[in-house]
């Protein structure tokens, strides 16, 4: 199969998943009811379910899946390390820290004005963005001092664990309802975004992808390693910063609005490399994005528990239901050659 065929195939799966996620939920709807709800002039009882709930959730799932997968791909290629993912730089830990401080020091109680759902709070999202950006800036600073990839990777992991320790410490001194609020945030949610927030995420994703398209040629050259890239006239330092920024922003913004969603960013790049059998980022980036969007959509459908009136936390679904399939698929492959 040619790469184009595979991409088209993936798009079809994504599209099918999208329709499916609109149909399935606590109330099962047929596609015709959905079309009715979306396009007919008079609003039915389903219009609210679709427009206010299912549609934003499905779109969020696609955007989050795409953003996290691209971020993971960038990190794996940047560090030439198959174990890297969107969170190796400690971006989600930074977001988590700021959220923990906000919730558990009591500021949240003063600011939230009675908001019940931790995922619906703009204040929390802003705190998470600030936390992610703080870690990202710290890493940019570190990489300007020491350009060694392995050093940066280890420092990123150490920041993550140091920050986790601080979060534990804050938890230790906090009240139980605050700890529960924080834990709820870490479980992730795709269903709490307003249309404004979704538009913001979509624009940010678009900007990041545009940056990647602009630097697609140097990204490809970096496959040969930094020395060869330099010898071919690549502005390596600029490209490094752009990769770190793009990946950090993608991971950070999704963490801010949906919580730290695991597994997708680590696993999906490996899947798309296996599907497309290519090294070229011009294929890998769209392939990874579409696969990631589709997988998170299907995870979300499972999280809905169709026909039931409760929802599972998305983070548990990606780990419990998504991971086994990917593991089964990858068990039959050999990934050791991905990077030397």
């Amino acid at each position, binding site marked *: 199969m040619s790469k184009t065929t595979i991409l088209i195939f993936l798009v079809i799966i994504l599209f099918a998943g999208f329709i499916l996620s609109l149909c399935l939920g606590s109330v099962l709807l047929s596609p015709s009811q959905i079309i009715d709800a979306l396009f007919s002039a008079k609003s039915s009882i389903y219009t609210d379910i679709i427009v206010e709930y299912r549609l934003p959730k499905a779109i969020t799932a696609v955007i989050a899946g795409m953003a996290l997968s691209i971020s993971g791909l960038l990190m794996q290629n940047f560090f030439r390390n198959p174990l890297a993912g969107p969170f190796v730089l400690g971006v989600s830990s930074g977001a988590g820290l700021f959220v923990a401080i906000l919730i558990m020091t009591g500021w949240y109680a003063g600011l939230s004005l009675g908001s019940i759902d931790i995922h619906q709070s703009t204040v929390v999202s802003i705190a998470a963005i600030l936390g992610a950006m703080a870690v990202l800036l710290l890493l940019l600073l570190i990489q300007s001092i020491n350009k060694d990839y392995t050093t940066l990777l280890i420092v990123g992991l150490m920041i993550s664990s140091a920050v986790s320790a601080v979060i534990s410490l804050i938890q230790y001194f906090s009240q139980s309802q605050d700890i529960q609020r924080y834990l709820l945030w870490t479980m992730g949610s795709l269903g709490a975004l307003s249309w404004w927030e979704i538009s913001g995420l979509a624009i940010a994703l678009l900007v990041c992808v545009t940056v990647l398209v*602009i630097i*697609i*040629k140097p990204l*490809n*050259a970096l*496959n*040969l*390693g930094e*020395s*060869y890239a*330099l*010898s*071919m*006239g*690549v502005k390596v330092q600029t490209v490094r910063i752009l990769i770190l920024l793009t990946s950090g922003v993608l991971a950070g913004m999704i963490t801010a609005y949906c919580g730290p969603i695991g597994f997708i960013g680590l696993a999906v790049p490996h899947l798309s*490399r296996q599907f497309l*059998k*290519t*090294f*070229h980022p*011009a294929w890998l980036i769209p392939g990874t994005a579409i696969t990631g969007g589709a997988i998170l959509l299907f995870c979300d459908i499972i999280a809905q528990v169709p026909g039931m009136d409760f929802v599972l936390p998305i983070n548990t679904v990606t780990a419990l239901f998504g991971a086994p399939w990917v593991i089964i698929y990858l068990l039959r492959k050999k990934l050791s*050659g*991905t*990077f*030397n």
Partner: protein
Amino acid sequence: MTDKYNDIALEFDSLSIGYSKNEPVATNLSAKVSWGENIALVGQNGSGKSTLLKTLSLLQAKLHGTITINGKNSDHLDDKDKAQFTGIVLTRREVIANMTVEDLVMLGRYPFTPWHGRLTKEDLKKVSNALEATGIYKKRKSLLSELSDGQLQKAWIARVLAQESKILFLDEPTSFLDQPSKMEIFGLISDLVRKENKTVITATHDLDLAIQKCHRFWLLNEKGELVDKLPEELIMDGSINDLFAGKGFEFDLDQGRFIRKNKFSRNYNIKGSPHLVKWVEHAFNKHNISENIPEKLSVTESDKKLIFRLGEKEFTRMSQFLESIKSM
């Protein structure tokens, strides 16, 4: 040479190389090289061969001094000039997952393609020229992971050829290759120099081949000096021994290779044609046969059969011959 080219391809003057000014790897290096010269850069491990190659190919910043490429100070070259004049093949022969030989060589056209990186017909022509020049055109659709070490090296050399750099820097292109592949690579380098008038600077430990093929040696010795001489000259004046200084080897002028010191000095007095006697001595040496060697030894060969004589006894197998001498 067209007018575009200066007579001197590359010149460097009072050059210091290394990663930090406090601990330079080597200082005050000077040499020049013309177009169509084939230079071997030799020296013990850690003498700074790789650092010098990376500095001259402008991959690594110099600490001090000037580098002049085609008459232009290297500080004033833009990225495209750099790519046009200098191309490097590093020691590590990387295998990139899912990449074919052709993909790799196509990346050689990188400095000349537009932002999206797509190749024109002319670019593709240059890619297939490079594949043909290195003799791996037939392997162009193979994945890098499917190649032998020698083919992989040729693929990486083809990449730098596609870049059409006028000066090539090769860092130990023959390390970990088998002897025929080593010879092929050195033959390829000679061809590039002769047919395309390229200047090639090869860091290498394969002295035998470098002595055969390279016009000049740049020897980085223990004192951190760069000795710029013809290989023959280095052999004749003995400075080639600097390469193995303190390691108990010396260059044997007759044999044209390095041998352990103080061997082959004993005259065993074996009768037979010289080329046969030489190899018997070789075996004696290796088996430490130096005491109590009997007088009447000879070796003859007819119709691919060897006959070793020890007094009245005859042997057709060398091992039996050696055993019987040892047991005396």
